[in-house]
């Protein structure tokens, strides 16, 4: 700012070497404000917060290994004859892309290792993004003020799948070529513009000669750039909001309890990067992933049975398998007004994924509308303490898993020696009833766990020690909880259904009536947290023997 920086700076002289370096940087770029803000910023600690870190770190590994691969990969689809060192494919006609992928695997030192690191890290990336989102959903971390960050996370999930799929197709081997063929078939089923999109994407008829280089550009430039942008937004919002924390003694919506960024949290998080890298390296060293040399170059004629797409595409592929093409004698594909509507492809390809992502993106607002809860939440819910939300999540998760399992229907059939058709019939049934069963079971389990918590809070922990009283009665000794452990079990909100509220004109409109009904459905089954009065009563009941409690049921289910 001022021209006389140098003489002024000598007012404060740092004494340590680290201090002098900090001072040097600060005088040039002025970072002391940032350091003061972040140097000791408190981060809550929990193992489930590491999924997001795994995602970030596997993305870094992807950038590192991917850069190495670009130095050797050639995305051309020109015809060539293989001249590398893998004998079974010697002189076989193939595309330059496949040939250079083989060269990376066999003729570039460490190339196979890098390819496998890249592929494993990609699988881990999508997996950790997904699990991280499940964690955020089940703990209610998406609630105000974090709705937008939840949406950014959803976009990241879609982008990570896009990155995975475009990369999967690049080696131009038989397996990935068949994957592209399926994509082409799905695109062609889109009404009106499908054929054009297919021709524009492939630069003519399938497979054409341009698709690999186009996917390559998307894979190494556009998609990673978007992912990077989203990650920056994601982390920026994490800083603005500060991290959520699990409920417990000393933790509330007004504070953050945890370790300071420097040194403990930074050391743990930084060290964790190396651990993730090490585990990926171990997998890449010892577990073969995508052995493209076994599949051969892409050829539209052969195909091998029992092949699987990468796991994150499985649910769409499974949905495609589950849809019957003919129901009774009725063809699902219809010709209307002289045009083809391939509902047998269109519905399974678009509808389940469409529903999952629509619900995912809008859920924070749906729940906020039903509960009329407009407060900020920084303390997480234990999943059992939000039974209906947890049940909704498990219903969706089960639905996804049924479709995912369907992608392996042929493997299930051969592995368990059952008829393939029966596997498909069962999965078709589960597609509809699976989520319903999951919803009911999950909700009951959550309520049962809440009751268990109540019981432990009021009567203490079972010690397994049986005592015979002087008058002959046998009782099990219960050890009372300390106040910190008890607070963890009782310190939660249990909202009751919120009846319809009249609007400004004093009228309860239809929408509000619907909301009240949903609120009833959301909160009608509830277990209230134990209160001090109940604890008192539970103790008084046993004549003041604090340490000795009968295992008599004291559950009170309030409605």
């Amino acid at each position, binding site marked *: 700012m001022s021209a006389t920086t140098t003489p002024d700076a000598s007012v404060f002289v740092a004494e340590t070497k680290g201090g002098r370096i900090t001072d040097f940087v600060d005088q040039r770029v002025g970072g002391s404000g940032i350091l003061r803000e972040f140097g000791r*910023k408190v981060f809550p600690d929990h193992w489930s917060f590491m999924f997001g870190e795994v995602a970030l770190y596997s993305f870094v590994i992807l950038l590192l290994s991917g850069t190495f691969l670009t130095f050797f990969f050639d995305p051309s689809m020109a015809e060539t004859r293989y001249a590398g*060192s893998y004998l079974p494919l010697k002189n076989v006609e193939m595309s330059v892309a496949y040939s250079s992928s083989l060269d990376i695997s*066999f003729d570039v030192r*460490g190339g*196979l*290792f890098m390819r496998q690191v890249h592929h494993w890290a990609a699988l881990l990336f999508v997996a950790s993004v997904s699990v991280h989102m499940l964690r955020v959903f089940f703990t209610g971390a998406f609630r105000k003020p974090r709705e937008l960050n939840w949406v950014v996370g959803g976009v990241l999930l879609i982008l990570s799948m896009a990155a995975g799929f475009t990369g999967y197709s690049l080696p131009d081997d038989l397996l990935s070529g*068949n994957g592209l063929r*399926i994509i082409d078939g*799905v695109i062609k*089923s889109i009404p009106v513009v*499908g*054929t054009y999109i297919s*021709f*524009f*994407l492939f*630069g003519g*008829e*399938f*497979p054409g000669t341009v698709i690999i280089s186009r996917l390559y550009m998307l894979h190494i430039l556009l998609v990673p750039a978007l992912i990077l942008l989203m990650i920056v937004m994601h982390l920026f919002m994490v800083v603005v909001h500060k991290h959520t924390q699990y409920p417990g*003694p*000393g933790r509330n*919506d*007004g504070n953050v309890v945890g370790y300071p960024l420097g040194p*403990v949290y930074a*050391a*743990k998080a930084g*060290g*964790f990067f*190396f*651990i993730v*890298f*090490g585990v990926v*390296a171990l997998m890449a*060293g*010892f577990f073969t992933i995508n052995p493209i040399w076994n599949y051969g170059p892409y*050829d*539209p004629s052969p*195909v091998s049975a029992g092949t699987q797409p990468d796991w994150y595409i499985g649910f769409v592929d499974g949905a*495609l*398998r589950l849809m*019957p*093409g*003919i129901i009774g004698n009725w063809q699902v*594909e219809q*010709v209307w007004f002289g*045009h083809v509507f*391939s509902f*047998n*492809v269109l519905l399974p390809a678009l509808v389940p994924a469409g529903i999952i992502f629509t619900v995912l993106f809008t859920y924070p607002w749906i729940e906020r509308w039903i509960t009329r809860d407009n*407060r900020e939440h920084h303390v997480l819910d234990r999943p059992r303490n939000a039974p209906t939300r947890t049940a909704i999540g498990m219903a969706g998760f089960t639905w996804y898993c049924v479709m995912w399992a369907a992608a392996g*229907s*042929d493997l299930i059939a051969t592995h368990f020696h059952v008829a393939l058709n029966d596997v*498909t019939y069962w999965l078709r049934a589960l597609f509809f009833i699976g989520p319903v069963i999951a919803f009911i079971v999950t909700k009951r389990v959550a309520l049962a766990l809440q009751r268990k918590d109540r019981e432990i809070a009021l009567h203490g922990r079972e010690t397994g020690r049986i005592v015979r009283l002087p008058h002959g009665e046998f009782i099990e000794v219960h050890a009372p909880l300390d106040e910190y452990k008890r*607070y963890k079990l009782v*310190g939660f909100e*249990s*909202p009751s259904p919120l009846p319809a509220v009249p609007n400004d004109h004093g009228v309860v409109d239809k929408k509000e009536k619907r909301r009240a009904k949903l609120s009833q459905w959301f909160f009608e089954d509830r277990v*209230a947290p*134990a209160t001090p*009065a109940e604890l008192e009563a539970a103790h008084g009941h046993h004549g003041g023997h604090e340490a000795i409690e009968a295992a008599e049921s004291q559950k009170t289910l309030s409605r």
Partner: protein
Amino acid sequence: MGNHSDGSPNHSGTVATAGQSEVAKFQDPGIPPHRLRLADTDPRAAKRAERQVALLFGSSVVGTVIFLVAYFAIDLGADSTIGTVRLQNALLGLGTAFAMLGIGTGIVHWAKALMPDHEVSEERHAIRTEEDRQAAVRIVDDIVEETGIKRRPLIRNTLLGAVALAPLPALAIFGDLGPRPDDKLAHTMWAPQDGKLKRLARDPDGTPIKAADVTIGSAFHVIPEGLNEMHEGKLDEKAKSVVLLMRLNPEELNPSPERADWAYNGIVAYSKICTHVGCPVALYEQQTHHLLCPCHQSTFDLTQQCKVIFGPASRPLPQLPIAVDSEGYLVATSDFHEPVGPSYWEREEHVRNNNA
């Protein structure tokens, strides 16, 4: 435990209790007291932890050495086998894993055993102050007011129109990403060329097939004669024209009247491209005469003109009409009468044109 029954409601933090019955709740006891670790009280334990961390860092150095040795000592020369590649890959993985895990576990152990483990509580600040919010709203209102956009709808509407149309050129320049589809999907190279019928040839070597070579129960993967000699667009043509050839007992086939002469002596040819999303229908069950697509398990019945009997496909596989030429080779008497492969918007029109 009586100190918890004082009945005071818990008002710590910002938790409002709207919609909740105001019963007495447990008081937040605050952060649990800090417990000292062994290394905090016993200098020998601290020293031991220090040595463990150093050992872990040391194992990382060993890992780096393993990597370098594996990288330089194992040569991927011309005589290297897949075994050599695998060995080097395993050692590179092992080396990297040790190098990384050594550093990672070392740092984490250091942080957990030796760095201070006091949990700290920090106040959460509001994302924005009420004063800022009001000022921001005022600024936005002022800006909108000064543009006058609300008072001058002509400006607003013409701007909206211009902005809505401006991206059109951007869409248009993507128009050359590929050619127009026209009727390319409606034809394959099975169509007779210059009056000469195309022979059926073996996939992949391209030798023509004699009817006498096709025994009952056998199946052939077939391409059109001349496909292998193509240079441009070979895979594009192959992706449409691959065919499965099978011979059944003639009485097991139940051809419809208009297809009575499409088979020869129980030999039938069907498109190999699945009518679902285009995978090759590569599996032939000899006993049941079913064709199965391994991608999504669509099943077609040969004895019913490849009608769909299971799975997601909705249409039968198109049949290629075949006969035998003067030298005894199988030939296609015409192209497919309908487009092969997955359905598309204009397909019905192409079917009509092909049959006209």
